[in-house]
């Protein structure tokens, strides 16, 4: 329990890998019921495994022009810190299939994985909605909006009255043998994207 209540390390500003802004133009989204998570034994902020349930898989939403964003913000409560999470992304298209996915995200709970542009870190790849899931709270399409040229502007956030008890989890999945790296984590996620349902 002490890891939650006492700091045990400081921070030194380094010049080897300066922090950079933004996330890559991809967000991985999966139904919360489709994937089980494995956490590091000593640190619940690290997800070390993703396991599909049945034919559950991860879906990949791609964008462009550095137009995706993630936000996590601490909310102080009477029972400790909680975190609100937001993922802003867009879909540059218009079809029944897209509307179907958006409709589902508005009802069901999903989790999302974002890949930070700053990848010289053990928290380069982050999972949002690990406990309570996320729901689509904004899905706006203005046909004449030239910023997204008639595509959808979307936002995934925590469901009403439910915030996350932890900051976004770092996803760090090791290969069959060896230690987890950025590449091995991406490979593990992509393997679940490639699952044929």
């Amino acid at each position, binding site marked *: 329990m002490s890891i939650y209540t006492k700091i045990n390390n400081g921070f030194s500003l380094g010049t080897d890998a300066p922090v950079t802004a933004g996330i890559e133009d991809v967000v991985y989204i999966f139904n919360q019921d489709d994937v*089980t998570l494995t956490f590091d034994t000593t640190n619940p902020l690290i997800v070390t495994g993703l*396991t599909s349930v049945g034919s559950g898989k991860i879906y990949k939403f791609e964008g462009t022009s550095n137009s995706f964003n993630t936000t996590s913000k601490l909310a102080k409560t009477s029972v400790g810190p909680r975190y609100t999470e937001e993922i802003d992304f867009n879909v540059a298209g218009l079809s029944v299939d897209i509307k179907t996915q958006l409709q589902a995200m508005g009802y069901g709970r999903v989790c999302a994985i974002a890949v930070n542009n700053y990848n010289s870190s053990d928290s380069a790849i982050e999972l949002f909605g690990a*406990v309570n899931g996320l729901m689509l709270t904004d899905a706006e399409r203005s046909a004449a909006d030239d910023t997204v040229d008639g595509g959808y502007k979307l936002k995934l956030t925590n469901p009403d009255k439910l915030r996350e008890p932890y900051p976004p989890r770092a996803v760090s999945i090791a290969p069959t043998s060896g230690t987890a790296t950025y590449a091995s984590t991406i490979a593990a996620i992509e393997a679940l994207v490639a699952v044929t349902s």
Partner: protein
Amino acid sequence: MTNDPMTTKKKYILKPGNHQFAPGAPAVHHNNNLSDEEAEWYLERYPHITQLFIQQQGKEEIIQTQETQQKDTSDLLTPPSGGWGVTSVGMEGEV
């Protein structure tokens, strides 16, 4: 972890980490708190968790494959010694 004599006696060995067995459940399952009987019970009801266990037979195969690869590499670097060849041929047959 797998060299731990306490764990090697078990039939079902969970991979390292705290696992969820059902989506959204607390990640409370780890190798030290899961008996073989419990493992069988959960495996029957949540078949997808087979991926969370170390496959005993698979583990042997991995070790054998690694030894075979070592043998292959050594073949390239040094003349074959009889001992390696006899051992690895048998292993390759099993794999």
